[in-house]
């Protein structure tokens, strides 16, 4: 199904096609359609015979229906039937012709169309049966179908009305006004609960305790002791070579203790380290 096919069957063609369809000569047409159906393209629209429906055009027409109710409404309209006094036999006949054409065109025939065919057949057969009860409206086998047709018709119109409403994009245009260049978005600050704060502090304290515990056990005492020794070595205002503070004979462990002690002293602002030039000697003095 291509758009070229739609284009090739002009609007007028389609209307005349429908009229011929209404003439209920579809059975005959099918016979003519069949050989032509093998040929695609221009051949089908080249010389339309009187009752000939180009298959592609018919396909378009049939696809224009939203379903069996829509098709039935179309048939009723076309024949000027009264919806409340539906001639079921006739409408069924026409409906089946369309369904047959759909089949012959190997259209993906939706199950709904066949269900409707069955409903129509059932109504028809019930109407043919001799009436056993009083003929009131409730008992009319057509009543349910008519109700459905009416309900569908109402919604079909409503959809058309909604389509007509002015709508954004198509009919309603919104202004597109920018903020000045100077605009800066205002940031909404994060929410903080007092609880978060207390929890954070508890966390810090707990970590600090664990940390201290660890150090006290391992080296804190020796470091503290070494700190005092270093301070004792330093005279106020006098620089001492950084390397002089280490006693190599103490070995690796002793060097580490001294180093930690110096760091601790610096941290507590008790001593000051000075390096006058890059890679030069580091001088230490007490504050």
């Amino acid at each position, binding site marked *: 199904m291509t758009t070229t096919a*739609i284009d090739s069957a002009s*609007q007028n063609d*389609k*209307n005349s096609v*429908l009229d011929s369809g209404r003439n209920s000569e579809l059975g005959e047409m099918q016979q003519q359609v069949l050989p032509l159906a093998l040929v695609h393209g221009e051949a089908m629209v080249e010389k339309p015979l009187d009752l000939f429906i180009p298959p592609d055009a018919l396909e*378009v*027409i049939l696809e*224009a*229906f*939203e*379903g*069996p*109710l*829509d098709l039935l409404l*179309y048939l*009723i*309209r*076309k024949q*000027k*039937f*009264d*919806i409340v006094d539906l001639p079921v036999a006739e409408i069924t006949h026409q409906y089946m012709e369309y369904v047959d054409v759909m089949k012959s065109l190997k259209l993906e025939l*939706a199950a*709904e169309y066949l269900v*409707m065919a069955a409903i129509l057949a059932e109504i028809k057969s019930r109407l043919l049966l001799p009436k056993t009860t009083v003929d009131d409206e409730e008992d009319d086998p057509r009543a349910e179908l008519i109700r*459905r047709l*009416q*309900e*569908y*018709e*109402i*919604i*079909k*119109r*409503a*959809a*058309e*009305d*909604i*389509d*007509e*409403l*002015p*709508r*954004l*994009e*198509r*009919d*309603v*245009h*919104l*202004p597109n*006004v*920018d*903020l000045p260049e100077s605009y800066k978005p205002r940031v909404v600050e994060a929410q903080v609960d007092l609880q978060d704060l207390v929890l954070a502090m508890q966390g810090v304290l707990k970590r600090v305790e664990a940390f201290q515990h660890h150090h006290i056990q391992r080296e804190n005492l020796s470091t503290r002791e070494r700190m005092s020794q270093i301070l004792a070595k330093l005279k106020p205002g006098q620089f001492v070579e950084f390397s002089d503070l280490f006693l190599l004979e103490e070995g690796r462990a002793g060097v580490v203790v001294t180093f930690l002690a110096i760091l601790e002293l610096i941290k507590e602002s008790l001593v000051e380290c000075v390096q006058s030039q890059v890679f030069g000697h580091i001088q230490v003095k007490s504050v």
Partner: protein
Amino acid sequence: MNHNQQLKNLIESMLFVADGPLSIKAIQTTLEDDTALTRKQLQAIISELQLDYAERGVNLIEVASGFRFQAANEHADQIALLWKEKAPRYTRAMLETLSLIAYRQPITRGEIEDIRGVSVSSYIIKTLQERNWVKVVGHKEVPGRPALLATTEEFLDYFSLKSLAELPELMPVSEINLDTEQVDEQLETAEA
């Protein structure tokens, strides 16, 4: 410029710059740090703005979720010229499904299928939901607990409606007449 004038200007700016319609409540919330504006005062300012713009190239109108400026109706065609892109068209299946949800809400997909006589594709429901026109408002207490569909404020906004009551009235059953003129028209619009 006095204080009132400034406030009016500010609200005017906000309405112009906002991404969508602004409700009285939204304006109040935005301004609450700076002004103690009552709903009534705000309403008065908006009425004034509506009057100011009544005869201009843009109008201040009310839709379901609030107030918005929009280009005056009479210029719509010419304004459309500014855009090469065509507005999206919606298929009959889509519009009929939307209509059923709008007029018969809350409604299940099965109920829509019963009335239309054909199955409703998931694509249609998905598209309507993605456009934020339709949302699930609950589930029907029947086997399978199917979703109950309803329209949203965005749906009303899109069609410039304040409420569902403003939807076009449904045709009364008695008026279903069968004039033939409509028949060919239907096919033409469906094919177009």
